[in-house]
Each structure stands twice: as structure tokens, then as C-alpha cells.
């Protein structure tokens, strides 16, 4: 289980995306430099960090990082 601060830290350090915790709720369209390929890497990293499986189809349907975070903590 990780909290949202740690989640934002992972996005910054594992994907290299500059991101403030408040921006987690922004839709991907609103995030400068966002690329859907990041979701694949994020899935790998989240599963490694939480030790739990996260649903890739659900991650691919997410519209924001906050939604991905919810999927990861529910897993």
C-alpha cells in the first residue's frame, strides 16, 4: 500500500514526469508532456512497489493519474 505522496514521487522518479501532488487529478490531456506509454511503465512500477496485480485494461481506461492511483490502492 502506498499513499498519494509516494505515488506522486514514483511518477516523478520512475517516469521522469515533473508533477506536483495537486496535479494528480488533472486529466492526461492537461498534463504537459504526457504520453500513454507512461501507463505501461507505471503499471510495472506500481506492481513492483505494491506487490499486488493492477488491472491493465482499467489503467488504460483511466483519465487521470488519480484514477490510476485509486486502481493501485484498491488492488
Amino acid at each position: 500500500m502506498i499513499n498519494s505522496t509516494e505515488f506522486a514521487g514514483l511518477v516523478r522518479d520512475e517516469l521522469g514526469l515533473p508533477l506536483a501532488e495537486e496535479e494528480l487529478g488533472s486529466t492526461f490531456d492537461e498534463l504537459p508532456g504526457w504520453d500513454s506509454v507512461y501507463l505501461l511503465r507505471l503499471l510495472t512500477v506500481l506492481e513492483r512497489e505494491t506487490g499486488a496485480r493492477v488491472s491493465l485494461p482499467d489503467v488504460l481506461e483511466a483519465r487521470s493519474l488519480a484514477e490510476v492511483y485509486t486502481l493501485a490502492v484498491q488492488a
Partner: protein
Amino acid sequence: MSTLLELHRGGDLAARYPLVPRLLAELGPDELAQAGALLARVPAAEVRRHHPTVPVVKVAITGHGTLSPLVAPLTAELARHGLVLDPVVSPFDSYVFDLTDPGSALYAAGADLVLCVLDPMIIIDELPVPWTLADLEKIVDEKVRLLTGLADRFQATSRGTLVLNTLPLPRLLAGQLVDYRSRAALGALWRRAATALLGLADDRPAVVVLDLDPILADGTAAHDPRLSVYAKAYLAPGLLAAYAREVGHLARLVAGQTRKCLVLDLDGTVWGGILGEDGPDGVEVADTYRGEAFRAFQKVARQLGSQGVLLAVVSKNDPEPVRRILAEHPGLTLRAEDFAGVTANWRPKHENLLETARRLNLGTSSLVFADDSPYERALVRRELPEIAVVDLDDEPASHVERLLADGWFNVREVTADDRARPSRYREDVARGDFLDTFDSIEDYLRELGVAVRLEAARASQAGRLSQLTLRTNQFNLTTRRLQPPAVQELLDDPAALVLAIHSADRFGDNGLVGAILARRDGLDGPDGAILRIDNFLLSCRVFSRGIEHACLAALLHHARDTGARQVLGTYAPTAKNGIVRDLYPRYGFTADPADPDAEAPGGAGGTTFRHDLNHIVAAPAHVALTTIFPGEHE
């Protein structure tokens, strides 16, 4: 990784790009993937703005599946070689159009390397339901024809290099057939296609075909079901990383960087054991279990040598035994004539590598250095980051794989000139000097964090101390061998001083690595009380780090503080301990020919040296020394 993260957080990756190869050199697969993600965020142009001369390699990526996951690992692999990736990624499944139309954006980009990433789905996607072998064969033949045409078009159109790859045969295809005969037929037709693909490089100089089979055979999964089904990323991340590594070496060739010389350590690398300790008959070169592993490594080094790679030796050893074993040992596969240069001495290895490069008239960036010692590898990485370092360890069975894990010596073609090259370099074993020139590695030693504990030995250590006297041949001043009861006797003798030397550094605890055996002459002679060093021993694993210097300085201070007026020490030469011939004079002792004990019974003969305790040489600053002399407490 932490330094790289700091640079990333500070937005300094572009500005500090020349540091990056060294930071990546020792990363494992997970960290390298992370590093790739961070580096991929930095545009090539920004790196170029800070470093106008850094080589940028433009790579166009096209193919069938989702290919953007290749960009991060490719960025990391190029960065390992000091190159910057300028990627151009084509839209999904556009390779046929990209490579057919001479006016396509792909050709217009003028990339140095064009990666056409092929995966088995180019065939599987087109299979009808249900399918037969005949259906499959038809599709496979079509694809081979198509790819042949694309390769021809590329050859005629582009000045770059087209990189194709073989298709992994996934179980999810073969397993769909339930009878063995059909499965075997499927395997055969799949391999026919692979043969045809691999043959495309034969008469098309612009085409390189990467065979993925060796990567898969070493246990890399071809396929990740979720990424494949949901994201159309048909090649698994591990395979993309291995593929990227191959492309990294192609990019080196594009940038004109080649490695020409493999420099080998000897002890623990070319043979098992320590030549200076075990002697030529004691090291494992061939016919023992471990010997076989070392022989396999020697064979592969020779194989590389036969294709134009120069072989050289940089070893911490006395030169004469090295010259002799390379010339005379019947079991060695690698012999003197295989080497373009052999350096055996006690100088720091980076100095010897510089010298090796100079003598062979190569840049240091042409060298690859293989060593089983983490100390030596870290020293070389620190001092000469442009040298590629192969991490061998204490498992010789893995030496070959580790040597070949990176294609350091890959070339597009081996020429006759390459094959003849090694014979043009033949040289005698280079002579060297003594072990203590650590001036040039002072900074490294400071980072190494050498911690030494010199303490009164305890009864429980008698076994280890005895073993040191029995096994140590090089750093052993008098070679007096002591069985455990003899050590115990010394420990019980109030006039004897038995000091154990422990050392540790950032690579770990080295344990009890040495000893000083001394004795107080209680008689106040005309010259005052005497402390006599009967022997001084140090394991060859920890030579040349200032440990002996620090211990000797501490002993001299202790002698003066406890009322001694002089300290005597003897050097008794043997065939193997030439390395310590000058130890005492180096630290302020003078030869004392009048010493009555020099030829005493039980003594080993030799030269006795005297220190008058007036000027004690300062201990080296990089060693953190703790001393506990008898009667003191922790």
C-alpha cells in the same frame, strides 16, 4: 542511481551528460530501465546545446506493434556509450508504408539507424480461424517476400543502416497444434523464414539482421501476455531491453567508436588462485573443476583475439613468475604469444592501463578491462571512465557469459587486416615497480573508506593467524611458519606482541587480513629497550592501500610511547616475497648489518633494519585506523 536521480530532480541531466555513462555503468536491469525513462525526457537538442561535440545518433523506429516503450531503454543504452539518442518513432504498424515509399517521412528523416522491429504478430494477426499449416506457410512466405522487397528498397534509397530481427516462435502459436508432427513442421517452416531473413544481410551492406534466438535462449521472455493483448506491445520489456543493448553497439559503430583491446587481469580472471601464493603448479588453469571454467574463459579470449581483438594483461604480480608461467605452463590455453602486451607489477591498475594504451598506440576508450576484483574495477571506473569494464566475480563458470554479455568488440565485418593485427604486437613482460605508489589513487582510496583495526590478538584468532603465516607468501617478511600451538604460545608470552590486522572498505569487510608479530627485549642494553618485529604479514587481497603503512606507523608510535628506544625488523628474502624487500627502508628504517640476531638459529637470515624512533613517518590520511594495544580496552 541516486546521483542520477539528483541530476534529474535538479534538471541537470543535460548539463552533466558527460557524467552519465559512468553512472549507468554498474546499474542492474531495473535501475537501467528507470534511468532510461529519466534520460528519455531530456531532448537530444538540449544535451547538444550544453555539449556541442557529444555524438548524437538519429534512430528511426518503425515496425508492427506499439514501439514507444523501446525509446527509454534505447536512450539508456546509447547513453552508456556516451551517445545521445535522437529518436523518430513512426505511427503504429506503418513499417510497410515507411520502407516502401522513398518519399516517406522515415526516409526523409535521414536516420543513421532504422529499426524495423518485427514480432510474431505480423504473422499471427493474419491467420484465419481456424488455421492450418498451409495457411501459415502462405503468410510466412508472403512476409519474407515483403521484407526482402523492403530491404532492397532501403538498400537503394537510404544511406543509413536498416536493422531487422528474427521472429521469436511463441508457444501461444506452437501450442495451438495438438499433434507433434504438425508442431515439428511449424518449427521447420518458422526456421526457414528465419534463415531467409538472416540471409538478407548477405548481399545488402545496408542491412543488419539481429538474431534474437541467443537472447531468448539465455532466458529472456519474448512475450508479456497483458502488454501484448491490451497494449499491442508484442515484445516483452526484457526483450526490448536486450534488443536495445544490441542497437547500442550498432550506434557505437555509427559514431565511429570501436573497442580494440581486451585487457585481462590474471589471478581469479585467467586462472584460479594467486600465482604469487600458489605458484605455477598451484593455480587452476585447466584440468580441475574450476580450472575447466578458467580454460573456457581463456579459449573465448583467444577466439576474440583471432578476430582482431588485441589481448593484453595488467596484473598485480611480480613480472618474472608471470613471464615464466605464460611462456612455460603446459596447461594454459592463453600463452605469451597471444598477448600484445603483458604488464605485471604493483602499480595501480589505471596507471598500467594508460601505459598499455600508450604502448599499443590506442586511446584508452579503445580498451575493455576484465577483472574479478571489485576494488580494481571501481578504481578503473573512477579514474578512466572511458574504459569499458567487465564485472567478473568469484564464480569462474560465469566469466564467459559476463565477458560476452555486451558486444564490446562488435564490428560490421572482420577484415583480413583485423585477423593479422594481433601478430603485429608482440612484447615482453613490462617491468614495474613497487606497490606503494598510491599518490595517484589517493582520491579513490579516500572514497573507498579503508578502515583498519590493529588490535591485540585473542586466543580465538590463533587458528586464523597460524593460517596467515602458513599460506601467505608474498607480503611475508620472514616467512616464519607457525602452527596454531606456536601462535598460542606467543599469545601467552607477556614479552610477545601479537597484533591482528582487520580491514574493511565500502565493498565490505575483508576480515582478519594480516598480523604483526613482535617481541620486547626487556634488557636495557646500551641502546635502550628494543621492540623487535619477528614478522609482518598481509593478505595479497589488500596490498597497496596504505594498510601496511598505517599499521607500521602505529606500531612505531606505540613502541616509542611504551619506552622503546628502537625498533628492529628483518627481511628474509624468498622466491616470492620480493614485493616487501624495501618495506622497512621505505618507512625510515636503516639497514643494520651488525645485528647479532640476523643469522640466529630459527631465524630466516636476511637483512635487519633499525628505526631509531626519532622521525616516524605520518600515517596515510585516507586510512581510518583504530588501535587496541595490549592492556588497552575497546
